[in-house]
C-alpha cells in the first residue's frame, strides 16, 4: 500500500492558500476522524501464554479439588470463548481454607520476624514483575480490559503495591509512634472483577506485611490471574496456608465473610453486597473494611485547561470501560465552558478505539460480562426515557462478545437515574453549574463519596473546592492517579476504611 491509496490527495502546498479557498463557515466546521491512515491490527501475541484447562482451589499450599466436585467456566468477554474451568468452592472448602490460614498463622507467619515476612513479599513483587507480560495478557483475556491498560497500569501497580508493603513489614513498630501494632489473624478478602489482580494485591500485600494470613475469593468472572498469582506464591516458597485462594460465586464469598474463625473481612465490590456483608457481620468481633461504589463528579471550571480536562474526563469515564469504582461518571461543567468543552469531548471520543482488548491500540475493551452489559443497557435506556440526550460514538463493535460504545448524556438532571446510580460502564452524565458553591452542592448530592476531580487554573479555587468535597480522593487537574503510598477509600455508601499508604495497614492491625 502506498501513501496515495490511504491519504487524501497530496498536492504539495498548492491548494492551501487561504485567499483562493473560501473559508468554510465556522459554524459548519467539523473535524473528521478515521478514514485516512488507519492503523493496522497490532495484536499482542498470546501464544506463549499457558492457561490450564482446569484450576482447583489453592488451600494450604496445595491444589485441592472442590468438595462439591463442581466447576464453572470462565470466558473471555471479548470472544465469549471458554478460557478454563475453575473450581467452585463451597462452605466446606471455605472452612478448609480458613483452617489452613489459621494453622499457617500460628505455625509460621506469626512466628516470622517482620524482616523475614518482608523478604517473601519482596520476592512476590519481583516475580510478578518478571511475569508481568503473561499476567497482563491473561488479565486482558479474562476480563476484557485493553492490553495497554493491563500492561501499563494494572501490572506495574500490582508490583508496586507488593514492593511498597514489603517495606512496611519490618517497620510496623514505627508506623504508629507510641503504639504497638499486632496482627489480627486470618483475613477473609473478597475482590471484584474490574481490577482482578490489582485488587488481590491491594488486599494481600498489606495483610501479609501486617502479619496476617489470608483467604482470598476472586470474582467469578475473572479468577485466572489470582490463580496464576497462587502459582507465583508457590514459586516464592510462601509457607503453605499463608495465602489461600478459593474461587466461586457470591455464595462462596458469603461463606467466607460468615466464617466464625475469620478475624477481619475486606470487601471491594458493589454497595448492595457491601450492605449485606455489614449486616452479616454486625454483632461479631470481626473487623471490616468496605470499598464500594461511586458516582464521582468531575468538576470543570471555565478557567480550566480545557484540552487537558478532556483527557481527564476521558480517562475518568472510559478507562477500563468505566468499570471503575472511582470513575468520574458525572461531569459538572461551568455553564460558560459547556459548548467548547463538549465539542472537544465529542471530537476526542471519536478517536477512541473500541475493540479487541489484545490489540495494542485499543482504548476501550469489552464489557466484563453479559450481566454487566445488561445493566448498562438498562440504565442507558432509562436515561433516554427520562429525557436526557444521548451521544454514542459511531464505532463499529465486534459481532461476538460484550460491547458498549462510549456514550455521553447531556441535558441530565440531578434527579435522573443516570445521575444518581452507578452505571459501571462507559457512560458519562453531563450537567452544568454556575458557581463554585453550586458545583460543590451538586457534587456532594449523591449517596456515594469515593472520588472527585477538580479542573481549574486557579490554585486557590482548587483547594477551596477539594476541601468542601466529601470524597475520599480528590484529583486536581488530573484523574485516576494511583500510588501505593496514597490511601484510597470512601465516604458514605462508598464504604469505609482506607487501602494504600500507612493508613492501609491499620485495618489489618490491632493497635493499642
Amino acid at each position, binding site marked *: 500500500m502506498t*501513501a496515495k491509496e490511504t491519504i487524501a490527495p497530496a498536492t504539495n*502546498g498548492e491548494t492551501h492558500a487561504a485567499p483562493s479557498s473560501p473559508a468554510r463557515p465556522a459554524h459548519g466546521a467539523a*473535524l*473528521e476522524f478515521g478514514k485516512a491512515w488507519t492503523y493496522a491490527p*497490532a495484536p499482542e501475541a498470546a501464544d506463549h501464554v499457558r492457561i490450564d484447562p482446569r484450576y482447583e482451589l489453592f488451600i494450604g499450599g496445595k491444589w485441592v479439588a472442590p468438595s462439591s466436585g463442581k466447576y464453572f467456566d470462565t470466558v473471555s468477554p471479548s470472544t465469549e470463548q471458554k478460557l478454563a474451568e475453575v473450581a467452585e468452592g463451597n462452605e466446606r472448602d471455605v472452612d478448609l481454607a480458613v483452617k489452613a490460614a489459621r494453622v499457617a498463622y500460628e505455625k509460621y507467619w506469626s512466628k516470622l520476624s517482620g524482616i523475614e515476612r518482608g523478604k517473601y513479599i519482596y520476592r512476590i513483587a519481583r516475580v510478578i514483575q518478571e511475569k508481568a507480560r503473561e499476567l497482563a495478557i491473561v488479565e486482558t483475556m479474562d476480563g476484557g480490559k485493553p492490553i495497554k491498560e493491563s500492561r501499563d497500569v494494572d501490572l506495574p501497580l500490582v508490583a508496586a503495591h507488593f514492593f511498597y508493603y514489603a517495606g512496611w513489614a519490618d517497620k510496623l513498630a514505627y508506623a504508629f509512634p507510641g503504639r504497638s501494632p499486632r496482627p489480627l489473624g486470618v483475613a477473609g478478602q473478597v475482590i471484584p472483577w474490574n481490577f482482578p489482580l490489582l485488587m488481590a494485591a491491594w488486599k494481600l500485600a498489606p495483610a501479609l506485611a501486617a502479619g496476617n494470613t489470608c483467604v482470598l475469593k476472586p470474582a467469578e468472572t475473572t479468577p485466572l490471574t489470582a490463580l496464576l498469582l497462587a502459582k507465583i506464591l508457590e514459586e516464592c516458597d510462601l509457607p503453605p496456608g499463608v495465602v489461600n485462594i478459593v474461587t466461586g460465586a457470591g455464595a462462596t464469598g458469603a461463606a467466607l465473610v460468615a466464617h466464625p474463625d475469620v478475624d477481619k473481612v475486606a470487601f471491594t465490590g458493589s454497595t448492595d453486597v457491601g450492605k449485606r456483608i455489614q449486616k452479616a457481620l454486625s454483632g461479631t468481633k470481626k473487623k471490616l473494611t468496605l470499598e464500594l461504589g461511586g458516582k464521582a463528579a468531575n468538576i470543570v471550571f471555565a478557567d480550566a*485547561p480545557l*484540552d*487537558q480536562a478532556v483527557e481527564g474526563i476521558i480517562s475518568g469515564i472510559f478507562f477500563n470501560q468505566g468499570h471503575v469504582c472511582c470513575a468520574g461518571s458525572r461531569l459538572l461543567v461551568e455553564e460558560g465552558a459547556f459548548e*467548547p468543552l463538549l465539542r472537544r469531548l465529542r471530537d476526542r471520543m471519536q478517536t477512541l478505539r473500541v475493540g479487541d482488548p489484545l490489540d*495494542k491500540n485499543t482504548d476501550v475493551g469489552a464489557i466484563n460480562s453479559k450481566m454487566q452489559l445488561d445493566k448498562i443497557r438498562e440504565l442507558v435506556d432509562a436515561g433516554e426515557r427520562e429525557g436526557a440526550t444521548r451521544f454514542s460514538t459511531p464505532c463499529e463493535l465486534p459481532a461476538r462478545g460484550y460491547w458498549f460504545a462510549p456514550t455521553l448524556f447531556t441535558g441530565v438532571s440531578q434527579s435522573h437515574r443516570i445521575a444518581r446510580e452507578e452505571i459501571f460502564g462507559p457512560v458519562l452524565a453531563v450537567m452544568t453549574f454556575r458557581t463554585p458553591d453550586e458545583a460543590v452542592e451538586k457534587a456532594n448530592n449523591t449517596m456515594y463519596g469515593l472520588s472527585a476531580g477538580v479542573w481549574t487554573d486557579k490554585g486557590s479555587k482548587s483547594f477551596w473546592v477539594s476541601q468542601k468535597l466529601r470524597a475520599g480522593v480528590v484529583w486536581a487537574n488530573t484523574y485516576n492517579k494511583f500510588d501505593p503510598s496514597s490511601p484510597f477509600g470512601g465516604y458514605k455508601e462508598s464504604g469505609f476504611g482506607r487501602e494504600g499508604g500507612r493508613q492501609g495497614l491499620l485495618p489489618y492491625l490491632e493497635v493499642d
Partner: protein
Amino acid sequence: MAAEGGNGKGAAGPSGARTYPDFSAPTVDKVMVEERAAALGKRSIKKETKVAGLLLSIAMMDLTTLEGKDSPGKVTQLCQKAMRPHASPEVPPCAAICVYPKLVPVAKHALAGSSVKVASVATAFPSGLSALDVKLEDVRRAVAWGADEIDMVIDRGALLAGEKTRIFDEIAATKEACGQAHLKVILETGELGTYDLVREASQIAMLAGADFIKTSTGKVTPAATPAVTLVMLEAIRDFFYATGKRIGMKPAGGIRTAKQALHYLVLVKETLGDAWLTPDLFRLGASTLLNDVLMQLEKERTGAYQSGDSFSKD
C-alpha cells in the same frame, strides 16, 4: 511599532487607538499535556500502516539545510535528494527544500519542473532581532529570488516582554511582504518557557495571517517536542472552529528518527483528523530524518536493515 500597510485586522478603533483581535487562549496544564503527547507515542504502527506513514512523512518533509557553510553545491545535492529520495518508485518527493535566502536561486534552479517547493527562512533568522524594515526586506528579497514559502521567526524577546500587539503587527506585515508565498511562523517554542505562551503565540500568529505555525528554528534546544506540537495542533483546531480556516503545522528541529516522525503523524491524526494528513497542512522540518525513514522502508520491504551506506548522504 505600527504595522506596515493594512493587514485589515489591527484596524483603527473609534477613538483612533488601534484595536486587535482577541489573543486569549485556554490555559494548558503541563503535566497532562505531556502525558497525552507521550501516550500517543505508544500507538503501535505496524506493517502497511507503517509503510503508508513513512511514505507520507517523506511527502511532508521540508528537507532542510541551514548552516553557515551551505554552498550552491551542497544545496543542489539536497535538491536532487528531495526530488528523488530513493530509487524505488513508490517513494514520493519531499514537500520542500528549506534554505537561507541567498541559496534560494540555486534551489529554484535545481528544482525547476519538480513538485518540490522552495522554502526560505527570513526575518533575521534565527533570532529575529533586527529592525522590521530589514526583516521585511529579507522576506521580499527571498520571494523575489523565487521562494514559494517563507519561514519567519517571531521576536521572542518582544513576546516575553508582553508586546503581543507588536508580534501581531510584525507577522501581519511579513504576511503582506510574502505576497503569494506561504508564510510559516516560527514561534521558537524552546525559548517561550511555558505551554500557555506557546498557545497564545500560536493564536496571535494565526490571527495575523500565518498559513503555517512552526515550532522551532532548529538552533535552540529543546526544539520540536510532541507536547509542544500537541499544544499548537489544539490551537489550530480552535482557530478552525472559530474561523473555518485550516492552518498548517510544522514541527521542526530534533526530529531524526522514523519512529519520531510516526509519532507526529499520530498526533495529527488523533487531534485534527483526516483533513490535516496532507503536506498541504502538515510538514516535518528535518535535515537527517530522511535516511532513517528510507532505511525503515527498506527494512519493511526486504525484512532486513541495510547498511547506512546504502543511502546517499547529501
